[in-house]
């Protein structure tokens, strides 16, 4: 396993900006099924949340999202524009719970528009996935394209993406369960090996091994649509 990465100063700063919770894409408003679990009293504590996130990284849809990001990154470097279109469509088709699909598209659209403003040279890569008005470009795809366009190391880009995803879920858990801020930070730190492992596996995963199992996760996300009270949008 080799999760070592080295980044020059400017690239590191760009990556920090991309992965920052301050990125205006609204990630904080989504719980990805955690709100359902807490409402149904199926997620009582930090240990339960740790297990849930680890499973999602190791065998859930997130494992495939990361593997798709590897393909998107490589297609953006090449560049192979039809591949960008294909993998964006593939990810939309994978995100079966309607709220998760809408989340991915909303965040993707926000980042898409932001990047067009920040760095217009990225436009051809983004437009290969679709126009922002299509409302169907996935956040993970836009993120991977931005990382490739800014020549950020692939492994670093994946690590940062997964870390930012985990960090957001931990924050949702802190609010919902609830947990103390320190407990949340301890949890996030403890999940580092799982994030590194998921990154390495995503990079090594051959396309005919794309498989996942997250029936509990899928049902929790789908059930969220009908929860009586909702603080989160997924």
């Amino acid at each position, binding site marked *: 396993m080799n999760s070592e990465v080295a980044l020059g100063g400017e690239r590191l700063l760009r990556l920090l900006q991309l992965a920052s919770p301050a990125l205006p894409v609204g990630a904080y408003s989504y719980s990805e099924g955690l709100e359902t679990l807490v409402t149904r009293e199926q997620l009582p504590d930090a240990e339960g949340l740790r297990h849930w996130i680890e*499973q999602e990284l190791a065998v859930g849809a997130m494992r495939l999202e990361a593997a798709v990001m590897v393909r998107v990154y490589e297609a953006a470097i090449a560049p192979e524009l039809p591949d960008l279109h294909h993998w964006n469509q593939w990810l939309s*088709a994978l995100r079966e719970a309607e709220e998760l699909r809408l989340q991915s598209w909303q965040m993707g659209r926000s980042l898409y528009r932001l990047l067009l403003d920040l760095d217009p040279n990225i436009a051809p890569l983004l437009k290969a996935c679709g126009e922002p008005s299509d409302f169907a470009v996935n956040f993970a795809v836009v993120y991977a394209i931005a990382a490739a366009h800014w020549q950020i190391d692939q492994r670093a880009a994946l690590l940062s993406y997964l870390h930012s995803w985990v960090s957001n879920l931990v924050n949702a858990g802190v609010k919902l369960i609830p947990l103390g801020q320190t407990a949340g930070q301890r949890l996030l730190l403890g999940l580092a090996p799982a994030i590194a492992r998921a990154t390495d596996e995503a990079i090594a995963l051959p396309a005919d091994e794309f498989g996942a199992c997250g029936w509990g996760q899928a049902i929790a996300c789908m059930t969220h649509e009908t929860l009586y009270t909702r603080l989160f949008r997924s």
Partner: protein
Amino acid sequence: METAVTGWQGLLELEFAAQDGATQLSRSTMQAPLKVQRPFFPEGDRVCHVVTLHTAGGVVGGDRLSTQVRLGPNAQVLSTTATAGKIYRSNGLTAAQNTQIRVASGGCLEWLPQETIVFDGADYRQRLRVDLEDDALWLGWEITRLGRTARGETFASGEWRSHTEVWHDGKLLWVDPQQVRGGSSVMTSAHGLGGCPVVASFALFGRRLDAFSPDLLTQVRQFHPSSQLPNPSPFDYAITRLQSGLLCRYRGSSTLESRCWFTQIWHLLRPPLLGRPGYVPRIW
């Protein structure tokens, strides 16, 4: 070194055509152990009903089964299977089943196989690809039991993989790449199967689903699985909208429970989507 060819190379190719409002099985090719029985028309000549079967009893390692179903414009077909499918413990080789479905505009395929029982130690990969043209419709379910739980068997080793893709006019609408390794943590964790031996999905796709009203979704949601048994085991289920589609997921311990729930939804949606009332195949 010589590679021994082992196992069945089963083949089933079915083509259906509609003429003057009547659908016929216009061409069929069969190679053992796959077979189709003579079509019948319990709902009149508009809808062609077929029952396919696996004459060898079950699928063993090394088997390569391939099914192709094509519906011409406006063809209406309901397809089911004669018995539950069985996937036996592997002899060291992987068993594979590939199904390709193409439905032309105006056509509708109701794909309602009986459940598949995956024995402990089975090594099985199935692929299903559905291509819909223009105003075509496909609805189908997949009910899988992992391990012969009635005998106290669990799926402790082996692998079950099921890859489903649904396309509409060249656009991928849904991809469902399922993978369960026997005895792995996904079988017990709440995130995965939560200890449930039965997983089942019912999906409907077609351009007509784009206009699927919130009212209809509310009606679909009034149904829920309910056990006929005195001591029901826990189950979990949910419904969501897909791109031009609808998906129902179930995890629990009863194949009958999932099929009864799916049938309620299927019967609710048959009149508005297909313009015909609910129907229960006698073979079940």
